[in-house]
């Protein structure tokens, strides 16, 4: 495998770019593996990578019904942050952010992680107090946090609607280590990294059934034949309930909802940070990609759906939020919009856990937070599968937490999946 470094770029530059290897192989599935991960999205690929790297397990297959990174990996707004308050989430997402900070080096693949700051606008003294409480709590995990007054905010982000906004801006809560990354590069980097360790990534291989004997999973049935496995991990957020039914495990505390995102035509540099606007019924987040497109999104579509296409009322809602907070976008044209189907869980927090089946493991329920969670999700899921016990950090990321009275409900919205934005 050719390393990506300055010397190889130079060498291939003068030898007609003929010295590069494929980034990953396209293997035929073997009869069986030690571990089969279902879903070659960001979390599945990261899991395979850390299983190989941290735990020395190489006999792994990642099976994917489409192409790798073709689901929610390519259907998000690429925001990375760790400004969570609840116990469990705080440690988990801070660990994730620390892994992001070194990810390009670790993968030898530029994931274009840009720590450009995440700015949550504040519109009332009550909102400022709540942000102060949250950000003081974050400091317990050494997650840097700042509160900006209006003067600082105007200096750093001059284009916001400071003059006649319906909800006047009074300041901002800021996490300066947060930012964004390039979604495809993360998928490709983890795929290439896992492949280098000998992991087989098998695309166009849809799981159609799960074979069991004596209460254990023995194989997954796929469109490319049966693949035996000593351990199986599900990382198929959006379609978790469907796989769960294949194992006849009944219900899950998850509903599938769809979330849209948008990108505008490319503009000259306009917005240096990730800006979030949320007040009353509005919910809006925006950043500018390296290609210049304004990447933004808002609420989900408000009814359960597996369709990977968005509805028009949300396009209108998001456009209204965009022009109310950044009026200069009024004449900017939309380039594309897309929709991903997500596991919305009952408290807005994920599951990385063992299941009622001994050698089956679950990674699911990522709500709005899947992209930023990628490295830590892979890290702890790999640890869970390899050691057959959850790390203390994810001890409450199990399916039984609701019956124990534990809700990791960051938003305080209650057990209604669509409300955990």
């Amino acid at each position, binding site marked *: 495998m050719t390393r990506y470094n300055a010397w190889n770029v130079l060498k291939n530059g003068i030898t007609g770019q003929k010295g590069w290897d494929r980034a990953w192989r396209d293997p035929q599935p073997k009869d069986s593996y030690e571990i089969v991960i279902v879903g070659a999205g960001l979390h599945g690929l990261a899991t395979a990578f850390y299983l190989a790297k941290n735990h020395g397990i190489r006999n792994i297959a990642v099976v994917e019904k489409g192409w790798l990174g073709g689901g929610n990996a390519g259907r998000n707004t690429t925001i990375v942050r760790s400004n969570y308050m609840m116990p469990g989430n705080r440690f988990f997402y801070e660990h994730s952010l620390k892994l992001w900070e070194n990810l390009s080096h670790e993968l030898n693949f530029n994931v274009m992680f840009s720590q450009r700051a995440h700015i949550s606008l504040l519109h009332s003294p009550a909102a400022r107090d709540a942000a102060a409480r949250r950000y003081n709590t974050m400091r317990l995990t050494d997650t840097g946090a700042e509160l900006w007054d209006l003067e600082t905010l105007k200096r750093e982000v001059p284009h916001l609607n400071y003059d006649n906004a319906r909800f006047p801006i009074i300041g901002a809560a800021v996490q300066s280590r947060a930012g964004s990354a390039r979604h495809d590069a993360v998928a490709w980097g983890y795929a290439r990294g896992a492949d280098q360790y000998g992991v087989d990534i098998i695309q166009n291989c849809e799981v159609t059934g799960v074979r069991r004997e004596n209460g254990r999973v023995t194989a997954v049935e796929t469109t490319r034949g049966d693949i035996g496995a000593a351990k199986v991990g599900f990382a198929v957020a959006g379609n978790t309930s469907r796989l769960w039914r294949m194992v006849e495990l009944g219900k899950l505390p998850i509903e599938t909802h769809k979330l849209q995102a948008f990108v505008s035509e490319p503009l000259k540099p306009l917005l240096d940070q990730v800006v979030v606007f949320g007040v009353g019924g509005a919910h809006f987040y925006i950043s500018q990609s390296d290609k210049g497109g304004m990447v933004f999104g808002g609420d989900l579509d408000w009814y*359960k759906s597996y369709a990977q296409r968005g509805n028009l009322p949300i396009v209108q809602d998001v456009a209204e939020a965009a022009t109310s907070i950044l009026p200069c976008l009024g004449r900017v044209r939309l380039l594309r919009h897309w929709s991903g189907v997500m596991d919305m869980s009952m408290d807005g927090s994920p599951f990385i856990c063992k299941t009622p089946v001994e050698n089956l493991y679950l990674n699911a329920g990522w709500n709005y937070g899947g992209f930023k969670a990628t490295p830590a999700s892979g890290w702890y899921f790999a640890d869970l599968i390899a050691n057959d016990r959850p790390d203390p950090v994810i001890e409450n990321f199990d399916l039984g937490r609701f019956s124990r009275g534990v809700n990791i409900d960051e938003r305080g919205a209650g057990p209604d999946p669509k409300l955990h934005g």
Partner: protein
Amino acid sequence: MIRIKCPFCGERDHSEFTYGGDASIVYPALDATAEEWHEAVFMRENIRGMQTETWHHVNGCRMWLIVQRDTMTHEIRSVRPAHEGLAGVLEDDR
């Protein structure tokens, strides 16, 4: 846009409605066990395909409706009032 044929108001855009959720859930008696309440409050079939669900015509007649809708294609098979006999009662009162 999904179009829902409200039995009281006629066919309207879904933006007039709010989505309630899975209509198959029945809450147990108040003194039921914690397991039964856990099942009703937290656990979901999360069907991909035809689902029976509730919608509230909040910006219309404010009636709760039971809708059979495909969660993959958004095709609607049937719409009826959530409270059985309600339509008949309203007719009789007229």
